[in-house]
């Protein structure tokens, strides 16, 4: 193979055609070879003829198929393999359901020429998609469990409630909600008065209370019928339903405050879309409900429908920013990073348009978030978004300091910063603080001899007490790494070093997988 002459060498290079860059070619920059004379070359006839569909970037060597055939890129094939891998099977999703969904995903991508545009490695598997869709249906609020739901507290929720602005129902009503505490600059928010439409709310909720009813509604929607819970009548074949996306925004006329979220697959019915004044009231209602009831599943669903109504009506203003910010904060508080990340991505776009809001607060969160997910490419983008002015902001400065402390392995500084986190950043830092403790312990165990007082570790790594430190150490190593000496408990560094090294690697590995949300 090496010896055969490639076509670019088997070519006569007409000297006139070689552009002479001033510095470049004093001597001819090519290897002159005999010109090729015979043009009637052996025909290449094994390729599919003209009209074959675009993407086929990897013809397998094996098939010299007589008729055109779409060959999928390796990434797609790997994706399919993963779908069928035993460890990825989900009990509640049957094989045929999964295959049907898979077929749909792939034909859809092929028809839209997106086979090469999709990041197959990260695309959710069809079984997961099906589960998510079901969850969305089931997760709609039902009166029966309303107000009683108590979600597990977020992972790092230790006894130390530093900046927690948690306003779960058990807390006294005079506590301000997180978004108020975090920002008292929300003039717009304060301007909107809350209307007394509670009774109506209750009724609509009753209508949509049963998940069965929701399923029914969803089914109808696919049949081209409007939302069942809109409260207003919707004619089955309303001509306004077929709004072309390019024909401009929908103008909603729904007056109901609450609305469950459904993913749209076609133009929405204006009868089920709430106009801005209604959305503003809806937001007030949601804030109140969140404060009183703290039902995250309900709130999240309502916010998603709020966002959707804004989008289909092309509403992009200060209110839009406010909705995304509040949703992001609530998601943060509940440790729902998937939802948080969606809001964060949208906020970045909105802030770029200078629509107000609290860009610095969220720029800071974004930096902390990418520390957590260890996404350095995204981190670079986040750093590029920080202006000199932003750096004057306390939260931004804090997040930047956290980043650089970790980059340099300065756990001492990191834990000082951890104990002094502005806004709701602590919810994010809680997500990775244990990981950084393990990283620090791995270094400490290698650098100190023969042992260290665990009081030192308590203070250095932001633990609340020696007991907590000891428990943490025992959780990640074994009893023989601790020893009581001269009335204090000491960590035997050489014994523990390998254990913490391993625990550190494990913690980072988990996040590398989870971080791909």
């Amino acid at each position, binding site marked *: 193979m090496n010896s055969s002459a490639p076509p670019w060498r088997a070519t006569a290079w007409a000297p006139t055609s070689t*552009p002479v860059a001033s*510095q*470049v070619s004093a*001597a001819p*920059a*090519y*290897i002159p070879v005999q010109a090729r004379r015979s043009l009637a070359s052996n025909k290449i006839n094994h390729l599919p003829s003209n009209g074959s569909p675009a993407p086929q970037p990897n013809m397998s060597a094996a098939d010299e198929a007589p008729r055109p055939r779409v060959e999928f890129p390796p990434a797609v094939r790997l994706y399919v393999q993963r779908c069928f891998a035993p460890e990825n099977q989900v009990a509640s999703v049957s094989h045929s359901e999964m295959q049907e969904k898979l077929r749909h995903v792939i034909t859809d991508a092929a028809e839209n020429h997106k086979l090469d545009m999709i990041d197959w490695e990260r695309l959710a598997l069809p079984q997961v998609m099906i589960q998510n869709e079901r969850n969305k249906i089931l997760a709609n609020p039902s009166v029966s469990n309303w107000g009683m739901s108590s979600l597990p507290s977020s992972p790092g929720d230790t006894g130390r409630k530093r900046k927690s602005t948690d306003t779960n129902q058990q807390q006294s009503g005079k506590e301000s909600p997180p978004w108020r505490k975090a920002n008292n600059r929300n003039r717009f928010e304060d301007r909107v008065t809350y209307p007394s439409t509670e009774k109506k709310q209750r009724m609509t909720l009753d209508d949509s209370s049963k998940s069965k009813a929701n399923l029914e509604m969803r089914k109808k929607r696919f049949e081209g019928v409007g939302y069942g819970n809109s409260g207003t009548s919707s004619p089955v074949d309303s001509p306004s339903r077929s709004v072309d996306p390019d024909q401009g925004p929908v103008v909603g006329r729904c007056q109901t405050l609450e609305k469950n979220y459904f993913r749209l697959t076609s133009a929405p019915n204006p009868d089920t879309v709430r106009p801005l004044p209604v959305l503003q009231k809806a937001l007030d209602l949601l804030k109140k409900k969140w404060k009183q009831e703290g039902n995250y599943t309900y709130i999240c669903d309502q916010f998603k429908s709020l966002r959707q109504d804004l989008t289909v009506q092309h509403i992009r203003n200060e209110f839009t920013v406010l909705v995304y910010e509040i949703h992001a904060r609530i998601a943060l508080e509940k440790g729902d990073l998937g939802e948080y990340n969606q809001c964060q991505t949208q906020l970045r776009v909105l802030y770029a348009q200078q629509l107000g809001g609290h860009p610095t607060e969220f720029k800071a969160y974004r930096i902390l978030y990418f520390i957590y997910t260890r996404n350095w490419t995204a981190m670079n983008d986040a750093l590029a978004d920080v202006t000199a002015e932003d750096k004057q902001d306390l939260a931004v400065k804090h997040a930047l300091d956290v980043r650089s402390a970790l980059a340099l392995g300065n756990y001492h500084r990191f834990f000082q910063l951890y104990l002094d986190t502005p806004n709701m950043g602590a919810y994010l830092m809680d997500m990775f603080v244990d990981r950084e403790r393990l990283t620090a312990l791995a270094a400490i165990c290698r650098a100190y001899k023969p042992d260290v007082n665990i009081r030192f570790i308590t203070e250095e790594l932001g633990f609340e007490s020696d007991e907590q430190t000891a428990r943490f150490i025992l959780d990640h190593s074994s009893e023989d790494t601790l020893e009581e000496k001269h009335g204090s408990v000491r960590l035997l560094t050489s014994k523990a070093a390998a254990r913490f090294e391993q625990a550190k690697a494990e913690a980072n590995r988990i996040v590398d997988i989870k971080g791909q949300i």
Partner: protein
Amino acid sequence: MSNSTPAQNKADPSEQPQQQQKPQVLEEDDEFEDFPVEDWPQEEAEQAAGSAANGGNEHLWEESWDDDDAAEDFSKQLKEELKKVEASH
């Protein structure tokens, strides 16, 4: 890329005015540029054929520390700094 697009050759100053009024977009500032010729002999490459395969560029890199003659100065500065600490105790 190929040497097939002489008019794209930015090295030729006579091209510039003409290109500016044309609708073609010039390459971005920080984008890897197309080479004006497709191939060239090793003598014209950064590391000429004569130099050793691995060591040819070694003279362009150096160790990251510096045993400079200012070691005395540093020693003095360090002593002063240490004295300051003792004084403050």
